[in-house]
């Protein structure tokens, strides 16, 4: 029974070995003088790359984008279902058509609600 868990121990050993090699190899290569070591303040800084941010980084976006994001998610899901269905529409038959139609109606109800609420208007 306990032998079944030996795979996990094997994984653990492999993970530790991999991590040790990946972390240790650069140190070893540097010790051997294969990787030249020429540090400078920019290279040693924690900032990953490029130019440091100018001005304030707390940028505010218009909250109306939120509605668009919600609508996008709803219609994204709809399209993900519609495309595979549309390619196989002949072989799937009326049952699949009915299901997709019901799904479409549900999303359409949400769309009409958003329309009526004015989420599609920018002002």
């Amino acid at each position: 029974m306990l032998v079944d868990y030996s795979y996990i121990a094997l994984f653990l050993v492999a993970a530790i070995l991999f991590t040790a090699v990946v972390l240790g190899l650069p140190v070893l290569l540097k010790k051997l003088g294969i990787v030249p070591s020429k540090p400078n303040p920019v290279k040693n800084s924690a900032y990953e790359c490029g130019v440091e941010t100018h001005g304030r980084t707390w940028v505010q976006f218009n909250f109306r984008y939120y509605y668009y994001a919600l609508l996008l998610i709803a219609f994204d899901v709809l399209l993900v279902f519609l495309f595979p269905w549309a390619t196989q529409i002949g072989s799937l038959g009326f049952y699949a058509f009915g299901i997709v139609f019901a799904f479409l109606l549900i999303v359409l109800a949400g769309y009409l609600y958003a329309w009526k609420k004015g989420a599609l208007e920018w002002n």
Partner: protein
Amino acid sequence: MELNFEKPLSLLTLDEIDQQEGGVIQSFRTGHTSPYPDPADWLNGEEPPPGVFITSVEKVLNWSRHYSLWPVMFGLACCAIEMMCMAASRWDLARFGMDIFRASPRQADLMIVAGTLTWKMAPWLKRIYDQMPEPKWVLAMGACGTSGGLFRDSYSVVPGFNLVVPVDVYVPGCPPRPEALMRAIMDIHEKIDKTRILKR
């Protein structure tokens, strides 16, 4: 090179940032008037002395550097279009093992500086170069890279990238064709192959 702003940038207004940036660029310009010497001593380097172990270890190391040369994105102007062409399917940079143009200099070995470099951009070019890990190579692409090209006499253009960073290979042309750039990359490969890594 470190850009010395007196206060953290996040505390400054945009006007103050503009003024300070102008000062930084001006001081950078006065500090970079003579070109860096080209690191071309490998061209007439001495033959490797006989030694089976060291030579073969060196060969393996150079081989691994040769085939995993990752370029950093540095497209400044029209040359960058040719650079993109070279990376895309027709000329296919991936067969040299240079699959991806890295967006971060921390992961890159080769900087292909493609296009016209202005003095305003020069400190940031230097900064990107400084952030790249050793060993690193620089490829100046186009007439602007070699000499300033068409804009040599302009007040705002750096006449040759070797004023800012040491350049390994220059590619002439305005812009050079992707074949020319590929030839330059093969020159870089030749340099890598002939580099003596291990001390004797």
